[in-house]
């Protein structure tokens, strides 16, 4: 079993091994590596991580809304390598109107529901997703609650 120090070095090797123009930014915080990749290189990078480096487990897909910023939505993927017990956080910015990123469903079936949830709560469109519908909220719901401009109390909140 590898220890945190060794794992950190190994993930750094992995990031070095990726095409140089596919990693825009990278860093480590609390022993966890993260890397920002361009939106149009996302599928290629994830495929290489899965097939060449053994990150075969897609743990999570989520998004963060940095409202005043442009582009405002950052997609966050966590992949895990069982052999090396290593975690890697891959991030990308969703651009366009409506915001969109390529779907990971060709690589992992797990992305199906995870991306539907992000679509439901953030309104991010996943290009190539076979079944992009709302999953947690009713189909006729208006708005996307996890956006920062959506009030916590709900859209119809009235103090009177």
């Amino acid at each position: 079993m590898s220890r945190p120090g060794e794992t950190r070095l190994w993930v750094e090797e992995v990031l070095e091994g990726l095409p140089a123009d596919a990693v825009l930014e990278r860093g480590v915080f609390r022993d966890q590596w993260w890397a920002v990749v361009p939106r149009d290189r996302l599928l290629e990078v994830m495929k290489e991580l899965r097939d060449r480096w053994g990150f075969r487990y897609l743990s999570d897909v989520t998004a963060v809304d940095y409202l005043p910023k442009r582009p405002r939505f950052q997609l966050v993927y966590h992949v895990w390598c069982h052999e090396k017990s290593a975690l890697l956080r891959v991030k990308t910015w969703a651009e366009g109107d409506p915001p969109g990123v390529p779907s990971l469903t060709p690589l992992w079936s797990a992305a199906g529901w995870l991306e539907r949830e992000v679509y439901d709560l953030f309104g991010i469109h996943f290009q190539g997703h076979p079944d992009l519908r709302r999953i947690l909220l009713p189909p006729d719901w208006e708005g996307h609650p996890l956006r920062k401009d959506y009030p916590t109390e709900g859209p119809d909140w009235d103090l009177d």
Partner: protein
Amino acid sequence: MGRGGVYPRPLITRCKRHPKEKSLSQVKENRTRGEIRPVLAQRYADGWGVGAKRGRLQPSASPPFAATRRQVSVEKPMSQYPERLILNVGPQHPSTHGVLRVVVELEGEVVVRCTPDIGYLHRGIEKLMEARTYQQCLPLTDRIDYLAGSANNLGFVLAVEKLLGVEVPPRARYIRVIIAEMTRIASHLFWLGTHAHDLGAMTPLFYAFREREQLMDLFEAVAGGRLFPCYFRIGGLARDLPDGWTTEVREFCRTFPDKMKDYETLLTRNPIWIRRTRDVGVLTVDEVLDYGLSGPVARGSGIAWDVRRADPYCGYEEFDFVVPVGQNGDTYDRYLVRLEEMRQSCRIIEQALDRLPEGDIAVDDPTITYPKKTDVYTRIESLIQHFLLVEEGIRVPEGEVFHHTEAPKGELAFFIVSDGTSRPFRVRARTPSFVNLQVLSKLAEGRLLADLIALIGTIDIVLADVDR
């Protein structure tokens, strides 16, 4: 004496009525009058026999589950299957373990298409957390998986502590391990009871809940709450253990393996249980990885991946325990894996109790943990410290962390983005039930409707955990 003792029940319940037997009551009457034999002889002569020996079922000509292998094309439009039936299972159905709605398209009894519909219990916990301080978020995490409240607390406090860069004192760490493993046993017991009950075995439910009740009482003694203990705090624990609590936990651990023999005698070699679970819902290693499955569902297919072992937290690397794995990846193997996990949890608790050190139960940092109540009443500094912590909360450094733990149902992870204030900018709860449930439609399609119930049970979901 009840009437049930008079009649050989299997014969009555399993046979079609022979023309000579006018009604069921007449059959019973015949039997009480000793006239059963001629009728039975007639049955066998006419090829109606139900079994050479009384009380034993004769194997029928075609195996009862042959139909399950039938291939039905999913692509054809509904109009080409006029005999297809669309059935709504749930959202209010006892065997869906909550408010899960499954829209099932049936051809006869075979599931052609199965579409889970979730979200009935969505409470927007991730959104609520953004408006609360870190301490106020903690009680929300209990409600994510209400059968394993402490496991969720643990995941959240560890993620925040990772952001803060603090480590709790050893005593708090060991107590956390004890409570987390007790939670695992309680969650698995609930699963065992309800899963067996769904498949028609009534007794294990009562046995499992008997032991679960003991655990709930122990949670109540230590935290005041049963389902929502909220006993772990950021930086430590809410309070120390009450007197005599460890003795009771020891007593539980001593007797529990014997109680588990009760469950095993009821189920493990029970032919009905085996037929309902073996080869039902088979998952290969590739499918497990493709669908991102974790926890006992992944281990049932032979993937020895346990976060406690692979990425240890809370000092799990110091404990001696086995990560059980299955071979066939079917419902029966997942059953065996969860049973073994309960035994292993018991071992971990015993080891933690043996080594439980004395000392503090929380970090000594005035910006994270509350001062002693007696100090608040007598010292102005402590009063100010208490006031600031309540009013402003814990200031967490800017950054983002992802912390995963092995919850009873699989990998539970919290991804927290902090902007340096005392409220999280974004909290993401990656819950095992949500991700694991996705595989249900794949498993159920092409199988009998009755298997769907077994499959919902074997994935071990809680709808609060799915919908958050």
